[in-house]
């Protein structure tokens, strides 16, 4: 089976200038990332702020240009941003953001906004579009009488449902969700998470789910990639990765997750902060905070390689242990 979307060696570098004549410093937001998502599959991407997970999501959709590597969608290279081919492709892949209020137009009713992709991509005869909007609203759990509401009249959860309905309007094959439930309360978050997994099951949509919340990702994703400073440091199925993390960063991340009813004792609490992406540490970017760092970690960047069946990790220590075990 060919992957729905495949990325090879993606690189994104932002140039930062501190003054009009100063030499720019470069931030490598995404560095050498390769991944693939198969039809109907959900890939979770987790990491802390600044790890490049949102940039990666935008690059996969062709919204952010790449400085290296390529993205292939259904086997075809991604057209350039703004070209007619790229626009046509937008119907097949959609983005859901964290803040629904910013993603919605305050002056249009939600029914108009949900129907907009149908008009843009000229999907179905005009007469049938109203029916499709009703169908979409029902699918995400909005009441028919809310069709004429404006975004400010809805609650946060209902707004996010509107954004998701709009994203689904053109029957996309891929949905990239960037922190879609982070701004919602726990009880509403559960409603939206369940809805996403139902919609995905019913429509066979592939999903890239970007979040800092490991618990939500574990619940939705089939596979999870953990990012640290622009690189994927570990990737495995979501059942495996949270149960037995191998990379020291994944271990710390899983361990730092507060579990209701459990005290903090015996947890790995990482010291220090994620380094500034503009001043990336040499070698493995995680080595200054890593409890098991060796000399080699300071000088050479570990490659992402298979350490066991169905699991890749970018860590010298994990790779050595895997070699001994093999």
């Amino acid at each position, binding site marked *: 089976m060919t992957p729905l979307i495949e990325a090879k060696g993606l690189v994104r570098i932002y140039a930062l200038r501190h003054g009009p004549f100063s030499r720019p410093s470069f931030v490598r937001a995404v560095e050498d990332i390769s991944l693939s998502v198969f039809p109907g599959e959900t890939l979770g991407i987790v990491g*802390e*702020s600044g790890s490049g997970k949102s940039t990666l999501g935008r690059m996969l959709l062709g919204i952010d240009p790449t400085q290296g590597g390529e993205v292939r969608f259904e086997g075809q290279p991604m057209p350039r941003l703004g070209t007619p081919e790229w626009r046509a492709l937008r119907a097949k892949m959609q983005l859901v953001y964290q803040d629904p209020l910013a993603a919605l137009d305050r002056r249009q009713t939600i029914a108009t906004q949900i129907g907009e992709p149908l008009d843009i991509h000229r999907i179905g005869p005009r007469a049938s579009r109203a029916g499709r909007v009703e169908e979409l609203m029902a699918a995400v759990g909005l009441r028919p009488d809310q069709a004429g509401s404006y975004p400010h009249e809805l*609650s946060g*959860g*209902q707004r996010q449902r509107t954004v998701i309905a709009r994203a689904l309007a053109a029957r996309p094959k891929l949905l990239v969700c960037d922190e879609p439930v982070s701004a919602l*309360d*726990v*009880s*509403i*978050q*559960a*409603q939206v*998470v*369940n809805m996403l*997994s139902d919609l995905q099951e019913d429509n066979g949509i592939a999903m890239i789910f970007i979040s*800092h919340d*490991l*618990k*939500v990702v*574990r*619940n939705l994703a089939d596979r999870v990639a953990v990012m640290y400073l622009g690189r994927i440091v570990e990737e495995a199925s*979501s*059942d495996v990765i*949270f*149960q037995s993390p191998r990379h020291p960063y994944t271990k*710390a*991340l*899983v*361990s*730092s*997750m*507060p*579990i*209701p*009813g*459990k*005290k*903090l004792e015996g*947890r790995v*609490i*990482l*010291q220090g*902060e*994620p380094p500034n992406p503009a001043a990336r540490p040499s070698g493995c970017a995680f080595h200054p905070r890593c409890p098991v760092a060796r000399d080699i970690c300071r000088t050479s960047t570990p490659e992402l390689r298979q350490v066991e069946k169905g699991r890749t990790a970018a860590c010298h220590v994990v790779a050595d242990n895997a070699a001994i075990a093999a």
Partner: protein
Amino acid sequence: MAMTVATANLVELRNLKVAFDGVRVLHGIDLDVARGEALGLVGESGCGKSVTWLAALGLLPGKASVTGSVRLEGRELCGSPRSTLEQVRGGRIAMIFQDPSSSLNPVLSIGRQITEALAIHRGLRGEAAKTEALRLMDMVGIPDARRRFDLYTHEFSGGQCQRLMIAMALAGEPDLLIADEPTTALDATIQAQILDLLIRLQAETGMALVFISHDLGAVSQVCERVCVMYAGRIVEEGSVAQLFSSPRHPYTRGLFDAIPRIEGPRKRLIPIPGTVPNPKTLPKGCAFAPRCSRTTAFCETSPPSLLPQKDGRKLACAHPIELAVAGKTERRVPEDLLQ
């Protein structure tokens, strides 16, 4: 009234009510904070967990009407003059907020902000203030405090800004620290560091801590006792072990069920149906009745009061969930916590 009667509790809130423009958002909160205890306040956005403490400290804007009683060691704070409140705020009761960078002054060096707090609350000046400020920065885990004393807030990361906020809060040697969502804006690994810091500081200084959060996981790590709030009322109050092993209010139970698990088999989440009611159009009876699966006609007409239960918890529900019998039902907390 005898003002000299020493009460066991540090702070006592009685029938605290708050209304904004005639819309009541807090419906009579009764809450005690004992010396040195860590109390958690959980609930979803808009349930009044922050408003409770802003009202208690007189920090709400003028359009809010606050009634009821707030006592600090028996001394009434509610309605007392500004001069009294200013001695309490920062000195006896300090508060830290969710977003540290917007609570710090961007145009003053961090050292000046901490020494300012030391001057106001403890009358320290000059070299003495600087020494104490450096000690506080060291205590909250700012590495190389001496060199960073003159830096500005933008030169610190989010986690370090929160540490500096905590250092400023500690400057007045408060008896009570109110932490309002102190870790919500922070990354997971930094969140763990700040929680660890709060636990350590509380043990070292013996101050009481009120931890306001929507994150049940974070609350259960820091606190011994937890109050669950819904629509401006406390609906259940008990020890962490009690609430987590056997939540009795359907809302508490709903909150637990809605959280995705990081351990065990993956299951479909159980959301609470519906949404939080608008305070303008609150149901006549129990505010949770429209979302509750155990509602009867009684719930729709009369709001339940918060009543003490046999096992020491307090509960506001006419049809609570039966107490889980140990061993028989599925255990909701790991064994080690119940020992």
